[in-house]
């Protein structure tokens, strides 16, 4: 009985599946590809994934609240451009960061206003703003070559080595942790989860779901902006369409991490693990010398298998928990 319950709790823990998968894949690559676990290599490839990690957290939040923000990737690119442009104009690191995050936040506000205020479909609205953001970056880079700032302080934002990794990685980790805490341990996070489970019951429970959603889009946009700053700082260069398709990777990562597209279910760190899992696969296959074309196919398969496996595990855990619950309170029916 007890081991059974412990087992069901273990596999029922959100994110157990993705954590195990990540560990397995990581271990597999560490054994088969000697370069994989090398510190420098790990550091590099995690640093490369920083923008994806950040927008995965962002998109996961909007999915959990019952929407979706497809514009994160393009907004990340635009914010990176605006931020680097600001820095190249000699405005110093603080205004540059603010410009980047502000651009993201602005898009978040616009998304939120249109989706909540006008009650339009989030998928389509953010698809529209995705195009707007991506297009604005094309316009920007068409006017100014964003080929690097001389401001060392700006470049240092993401690149400074610290605690064996870089500040960029630390900031991304901090974002993941903070977002997790926000979702789990604050009243706002509670309202987000409740809203995601259903707008109507949440409203009945006295939650201003419109406001909660709006704020989620603002947070999502701001995070995309922050991700953009980190990207611009690390590469010290921004080009158009650099981040196209990031949003799809982020959605896939979040879903692999167990975030339900129906809303309400899943967590930030699980989604981030999903992103790390995809990144690990990519890096592992690269080091194995697998042709990226094949890799694209394998990733697709992994996503499907992952989603199916995650669901089956969850169903099993639910059944076990349900049985335990019924037993422990002695409900016959």
């Amino acid at each position, binding site marked *: 009985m007890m081991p059974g319950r412990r087992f069901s709790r273990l596999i029922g823990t959100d994110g157990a599946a993705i954590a195990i998968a990540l560990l397995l894949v990581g271990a597999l690559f560490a054994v088969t590809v000697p*370069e994989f676990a090398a510190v420098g290599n790990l550091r590099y*490839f995690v640093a490369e994934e920083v923008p994806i990690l950040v927008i995965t957290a962002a998109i996961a939040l909007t999915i959990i609240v019952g929407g979706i923000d497809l514009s994160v990737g393009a907004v990340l690119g635009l914010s990176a451009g605006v931020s680097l442009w600001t820095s190249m104009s000699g405005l110093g690191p603080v205004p540059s960061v603010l410009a980047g995050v502000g651009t993201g936040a602005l898009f978040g506000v616009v998304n939120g206003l249109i989706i909540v205020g006008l009650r339009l479909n989030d998928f389509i609205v953010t698809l529209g703003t995705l195009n707007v953001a991506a297009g604005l970056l094309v*316009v920007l*880079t*068409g006017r100014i070559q964003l080929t690097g700032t001389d401001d060392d302080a700006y470049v240092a934002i993401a690149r400074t080595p610290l605690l064996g990794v870089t500040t960029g990685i630390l900031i991304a980790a901090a974002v993941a942790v903070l977002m997790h805490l926000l979702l789990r341990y604050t009243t706002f996070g509670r309202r987000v989860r409740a809203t995601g489970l259903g707008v109507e019951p949440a409203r009945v429970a006295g939650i201003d779901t419109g406001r909660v959603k709006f704020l989620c889009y603002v947070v999502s946009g701001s995070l995309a902006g922050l991700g953009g700053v980190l990207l611009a700082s690390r590469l010290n260069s921004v*080009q158009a*369409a*650099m981040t196209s398709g990031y949003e799809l990777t982020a959605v896939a990562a979040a879903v692999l991490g167990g975030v339900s597209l129906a809303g309400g279910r899943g967590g930030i760190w699980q989604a981030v693990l999903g992103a790390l899992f995809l990144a690990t696969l990519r890096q592992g296959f690269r080091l194995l*010398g697998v042709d*990226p074309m094949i890799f694209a196919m394998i990733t697709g398969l992994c996503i499907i298998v992952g989603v199916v496996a995650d669901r089956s595990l969850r169903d099993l855990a639910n059944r076990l928990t349900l049985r335990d619950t019924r037993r422990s309170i002695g409900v016959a029916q």
Partner: protein
Amino acid sequence: MTASPATTRRSLLGGAGLLAAAGLLAACSPNGSDSTASNAGPSQGPASGASYDDAVRSIVDGREIKVGFTPPVLSENFTQIEHAAFRKMQELEERFGCTWVWERQSPVGDFSAVQGTLGIVQSWMARGFDAIAVSTGANFATVQDLYRQANAEGVKIYQFNQPAELYPEEELLTVTNVGYDNRWQSGYLAGTYIAEKLGGSGKILQIWGPSGSDWTRARKIGFDKALAENPGIEVVGEADGGYVRDKGLQAAQDLLTRDPDIDAIYGENEEMALGASQAIDAAGLKHWDGSDGILTIGADGLMSGYQKIREKKLTATVNIGGVDQGQNLIEAIFQTVVLGQTVTQFINNPTQVVDLSNVAWHEAYTQWALDAPKTYGS
């Protein structure tokens, strides 16, 4: 058909080493010393004598050379370059006994999948590749950091088909850039060709690649120079064709509708020029026949483009010397990695405007590369 150009070229290379050296000389940047090219023995073919071969053989000592090759996107152009490289690799392998480990990875996506290129290069660095050959849509600044790291780790980076000429040579962190000058060897050539054929005056359309790419910028500089030299040529419309045929076609179609009275269309790459050519057909307009009609010119030097030139659907294209790029890339790698020589920062290859008058040998030369008997990598 395939055999003859191959032998032709071989004899050119082997029999007339002078020509090859001259070709390299011509391509070398002004400040590069020519000695590296001329005593780069391997290119001079078997005629150089056995003792030289044995000497090199003993240095090579059957070693394995690990090369990573990453084009920005998989396309006909880069396939041609890769196969030309295979030709040279096989030649060196047979002659000097080296073995090649070849790995090609390209980021999946479009030209802008810049992060992918960086990740690929980094993983090759981690795996201790001897030489990493890069062509990327990433602009100069984006890759600098990674190259610096590579230099620090002693990994040699080679760029090919990269518009590095836009950047100060002393800041380049590559062993060499095997390519051509996009400004003067491509954009300018196309511009002057148009001006010459049109007799110095006419209305033209331009279809460019994605805004902000280095290739586009560089070719535009050259084209603008040609325009400045030929004030009679007037640009009456330009559009973004995204480097793909369908968009090039639509852009050309729209522009032609507005202004059917056009003398020439410049497609910044061949795909878009071919799209423009189709737009001419669709609009029921006449292709250039040597004196009349709409002239179309692209740039790349693809087999598919040559075929269209033969069909008179495409007037001309700038062959950017893909075959020579592939060959010289391998040669540079052999010279620097195995022999420990230096090469110039810019190894610029011959380019030429190809039209009906000279398409035959360009086509045959490219086909020879594509028919490489041995391919490497997975």
